[in-house]
């Protein structure tokens, strides 16, 4: 169900992604995350096309944490921030974080390779149906994604929408 991926650049870390639909307690989850009771990033899955997109955001979050250049307060908020094409933090949380009346959530955890992370803890907190994380694209809102990342039709001639999204995420500190 969940998807665990190693970070080659930071071999001590593993990123685990869990996807839920028909979630009834998004407001409660959001509150818990803000109070630091959930050690994970709660992401609005309609803004994500592929697990690779969130994996890149997590990789960059670990990278900026290591070099002491985080723009937000925690590793998990940094993951949400990295998904956004702009440098506006509150805008990033609004678009890529979850809202109280959402009914799906993608939870991204970063944990130590050895340390068994508390998956059961997360599973018990989310009141919804877990679905395979690689089915992320079934929940994504392509039109909204294209609009937010400003993907024009001509760009799709030389690559996928995912490619366009990834380039914007990678390039946002240099443009």
């Amino acid at each position, binding site marked *: 169900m969940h998807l665990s991926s190693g970070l080659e650049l930071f071999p001590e870390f593993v990123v685990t992604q869990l996807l839920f639909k028909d979630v009834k307690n998004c407001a409660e989850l959001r509150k818990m995350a803000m109070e630091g009771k959930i050690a994970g990033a709660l992401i609005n899955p309609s803004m994500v096309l592929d697990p690779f997109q969130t994996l890149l955001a997590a990789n*960059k979050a670990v*990278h900026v944490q290591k070099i002491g250049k985080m723009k937000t307060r925690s590793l998990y908020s940094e993951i949400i921030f990295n998904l956004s094409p702009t440098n506006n933090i509150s805008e990033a949380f609004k678009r890529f974080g979850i809202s109280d009346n959402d009914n799906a959530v993608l939870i991204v955890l970063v944990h130590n390779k050895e340390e068994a992370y508390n998956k059961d803890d997360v599973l018990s907190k989310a009141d919804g149906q877990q679905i395979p994380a690689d089915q992320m694209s079934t929940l994504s809102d392509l039109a909204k994604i294209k609009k937010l990342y400003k993907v024009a039709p001509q*760009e799709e001639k030389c690559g996928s929408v995912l490619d366009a999204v990834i380039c914007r995420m990678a390039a946002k500190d240099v443009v």
Partner: protein
Amino acid sequence: MAEADGVSARSVPPYLREAELIKQGAEARVYRIRFLGKSAIVKERFPKRYRHHVLDEKLTRRRTAQEVRSILRCRKAGIAAPVVYFVDLSTNCIFLEEIADSITVREHIAAAQASGQSVESLHHLAEKMGRVLAKMHDEDVIHGDLTTSNMLLKPERSGDLPLLLIDFGLSFVSALAEDKGVDLYVLEKAFLSTHPNTETLFQKLLQSYTAASKKAPAVIKKLDEVRLRGRKRSMVG
């Protein structure tokens, strides 16, 4: 010497220590690595010890950023270039998509010539190059290092043969016909010296460039000027 070794060892990012080095240039080293489960290319701009370190850091960072910007600008216009996965500005490394199963235009032309194919069989490719470069110049991207080795062909199952531009390390943004003319001049020099007896092929490229861009006449006029004087402008007088 011991000190120099220590410094260079420290400057290499840990993830590149065991990576496969595929190219070393004057500006950068290119490696192939695994990145988030994919095969990727890393371009590392290493520190140049003959420059003052503050200046070096500034120049290197600016070029790293410019390379990423130009790739994004091209892709937004529909010009194929590798996807940028990740930029590490602390070590000036760019992580790029690996274009698997591709060959350079240089290899393609050389193979065609070696197998005795007629120059006409390459006209289609030259026209495609002209169109892509016209589109790039219409976006005001100057590549800065156009050669047939910096263009890739990736055969697709559909039978398409898209042309990708790579190595935007010397690229910059400019609307000046002069800069575009020099860009084409650099390509012409590289093209004709790499591939003997291809003057008509390059003519085809320029024809298709002219047909594809409204701004082409001014650029071709500059190209003629640059041919007479060389790449650098005379600063006499």
